[in-house]
């Protein structure tokens, strides 16, 4: 039996929600960052699944761009984390209140 595309969308929704939960629950900046990657991948899955349903390649091209942006984001984000850790010696998001008034 062929899997309906809706099931892929449901899986995408579940993974996205787990990513949101990780973002809210965890206080470690690196793990929060991983949750962002999780959410990006859930959206990628939805793009590919919907592209398959419509029968066009555009969804896959968008996923390609999302991957590129994720790579750029990982490079800059990890550089920020290194810089923060060097100054603060913690990665707890509650203690990083540099921009909090």
């Amino acid at each position, binding site marked *: 039996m062929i899997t309906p595309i809706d099931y892929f969308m449901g899986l995408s929704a579940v993974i996205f*929600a787990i990513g949101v939960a990780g973002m809210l*629950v965890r206080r470690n900046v690196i793990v929060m960052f991983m949750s962002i*990657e999780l959410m990006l991948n859930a959206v990628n899955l939805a793009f590919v699944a919907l592209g398959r349903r*419509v*029968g066009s390649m555009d969804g*896959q091209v968008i996923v390609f761009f999302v991957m590129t942006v994720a790579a750029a984001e990982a490079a800059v984000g990890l550089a920020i984390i290194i810089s923060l850790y060097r100054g603060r010696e913690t990665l707890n998001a509650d203690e990083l209140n*540099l921009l909090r008034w």
Partner: protein
Amino acid sequence: MPLWLFIFLAVIAICGAFGVILQRNPVHCLLALALTLIDVGVLFVGLGAETLGFLQIIIYVGAIMVLFLFVIWLLNLQIEPAPNAHLALKFFGSIGAAALAAELSVFFFNAQPVSGVATIPGTYGSVESLARMLFSDYLVAFEVTSILLLAAVAGAIALARRMTGAALTRTPVEGEGVVRARESGS
């Protein structure tokens, strides 16, 4: 893709995703994330996007995950310090995420079906068709992407360089001169 294979992969993906947010050790979180990403890559292949599936495994698992691992080991973060538990945040965060999953699922399952059966061309998901779209319809976006990557590399180098100022230390702004003096004295 047969249904049993999808269910198998979906269970692995969800277990890996829960592993990311439930493990205490960041390295274990990262391994769970890599498992999920490989799994999503296999799902891509199952959906007919072979090129994208292999790119996913090469770029995400091969490059981005190794970058994460490198940073975790560089900063020696294997052991997370005392878990700072916000019980209310965990409670409402979990409830909010569950509500989001339910809402998105209902939304997706009630979506109107596309009229007619989409015709999938034989070259669907191949390198050639992906490249043909990238270099024709999406050429401008593709070129802008290269500028984005260049800017990201420059920004990462500028950020990770050792800062001479005391912009990120615990001392308040007024104490900056003191820190400078101590650094130059040592």
